[in-house]
């Protein structure tokens, strides 16, 4: 019996890759280089399914041009803005993602960035590695105290709630803003703000966890930044598009924002060069999910989606 053909746009961690090769005739981007729409269409020819990543754009045009052989698309991510769901629906191609497994790993990165930005770890690391450490002084590299402060979480979904739990270990008081108030068992004592201004005023540290899309495009703009307490620390591990980069860079220079920790960027992997010139930012290359267990689990979920779709069943983690 011939095995179905699976086109994998990027390299996967070893364990899911081994499972894919066991179960499928795999076509893969061995060099793990960026992929164009033309590459996708060429490789998809004759493939039964596509396993893609957020780095590839499957827009309406690409999906409309996909060969008839493609019966399923699974993305190795929670987000699916890079796939035109309506276009896939029109073609009758199911699309699946990898929810849940990312929550804890991404919250870890958010807490890491919060501490690193507040405590000036990027700058500290560079000073130490450059051999420029002149000696300990009570006034050297003084950062922002985090323990016991108020943390504002914008978007209290799974990741936001995981971060809230971690922040309570630091004795932080958690405030949140969300489409709706959470039930008490999920809020776990976090303070809901119906009013955006009161939420911003309360946030001594602000962490973004809202989904992308037009509703949150450049949400963190100059006007909202001005409503935050002076010396606020900003963390973004959700969507780069939620931040007005020019406004944030200006506030980092003026001191309105003491420091920022960013894992995501508008237009990534390109990022606003203004960030690179600043000492009070800690920048990570979108690695919310970059740990071995999580990446494995994501790969397995993506394959579960494809297995189900090719067996004529519904995907266990469908996006639409």
């Amino acid at each position: 019996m011939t095995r179905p053909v699976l086109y994998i746009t990027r390299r996967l961690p070893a364990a899911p890759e081994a499972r894919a090769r066991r179960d499928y005739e795999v076509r893969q981007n061995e060099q793990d280089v960026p992929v164009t729409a033309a590459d996708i269409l060429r490789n998809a020819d004759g493939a039964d399914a596509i396993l893609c990543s957020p780095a590839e754009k499957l827009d309406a045009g690409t999906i409309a041009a996909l060969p008839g052989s493609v019966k399923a698309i699974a993305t190795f991510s929670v987000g699916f803005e890079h796939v035109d769901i309506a276009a896939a629906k029109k073609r009758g191609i199911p699309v699946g993602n990898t929810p849940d497994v990312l929550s804890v790993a991404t919250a870890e990165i958010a807490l890491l960035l919060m501490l690193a930005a507040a405590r000036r770890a990027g700058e500290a690391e560079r000073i130490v590695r450059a051999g420029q450490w002149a000696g300990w002084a009570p006034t050297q590299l003084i950062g922002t105290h985090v323990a016991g402060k108020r943390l504002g979480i914008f978007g209290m979904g799974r990741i936001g709630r995981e971060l809230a739990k971690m922040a309570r270990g630091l004795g932080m008081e958690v405030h949140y803003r969300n489409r709706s108030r959470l039930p008490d068992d999920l809020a776990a004592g976090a303070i809901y703000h119906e009013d955006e201004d009161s939420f911003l005023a309360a946030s001594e540290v602000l962490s973004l966890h809202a989904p992308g899309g037009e509703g949150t495009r450049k949400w963190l703009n100059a006007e909202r930044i001005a409503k935050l307490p002076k010396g606020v620390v900003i963390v973004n591990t959700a969507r780069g598009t939620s931040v007005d980069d020019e406004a944030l860079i200006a506030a980092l220079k003026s001191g309105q924002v003491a420091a920022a920790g960013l894992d995501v960027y508008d237009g990534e992997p390109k990022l606003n060069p203004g960030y690179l010139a600043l000492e009070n930012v800690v920048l990570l290359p979108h690695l919310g999910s970059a740990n071995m267990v999580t990446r494995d689990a994501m790969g397995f979920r993506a394959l579960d989606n494809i297995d189900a779709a090719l067996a004529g069943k519904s995907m266990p983690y469908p996006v639409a």
Partner: protein
Amino acid sequence: MTRPRLVVARRMPRDVDARIRRDFEAWFPAGPGIGPSPLAMVGAAKEHKADAVLIATNLALSADIIAALPKSVKIVGSFGVGFDHVDVAAAKRAGLIVTNTPEVLTECTADLAFLLLLGACRRAAEYVGIMREGWRRPVSDMLGVKVSGKTLGIVGMGRIGRAVAQRARGFDMKILYTDAARLPDELEQGATFVPDLYEMLGQADIVSIHAPLMAETRKMMDAKAFAAMQEGAVFVNAARGALVDEDALLAALTSGHLFAAGLDVFASEPDYDLRFRDLPNVFLTPHTGSATVETRNAMGFRVLDNIDAVLAGDDPIDPLWR
């Protein structure tokens, strides 16, 4: 009324400085740099006819220096919680009151230790370096170690060790600790006591050390201790560099036996062993455990509270000997 005379041997945060200028006839070091050597501090104390001296943990108060201090000095207040730089026995013999600043830096240092832990596990130094170079390479082959749900071993379960344990609970970590004795339940908070250091090291995925530096703890993390740790484990030190045999740690990091380390302190500071700089799998900070405005102010005020008390004829709040 004449104000008491104080030698301020280390630069203080602004708010602390303001209180000093309000309450004391103070001597400050001239020019840039970290401040006077121990001998120069003694000279300043003599010349200034000091009633008190304010130092920090990077000014060694040896038996010789204590003996050389003028009799006018009734108290030396040290900015910091550690006191391995003080010859406490000599101070006691000389009847010199020396104080430290416990409690006020607990939370801040625990935050930094947890930052080092996360930074080491999630490879923050390498990733931040890639970003500074403009993110021109794929990073999908560079995976870190997940922290949540792992087993944390704490060496030294004092105030800071317990504050680190509290943070680890937010990550659903299993917590082991080793110390001279088991803690009462209300301080242990569900952490598991393992009397033997090496046994605990062997059971932990991540080890964070929070022991004081004493003769018995010097280089306690040696080749034998690192060998006892699990393959792929992570080591964190925000306590004192001299607790570690750095050659042994470098070997364990280079061989891959340890996945990574997060280090805020070094056996020699600031001229630390530059071999650490050349390792990708270390997250390094320059002794910043207490480096926040709030904490450094609280530490400075605590030193001044001790000095005020002693110069008013009361007992010190945080004496190193009784």
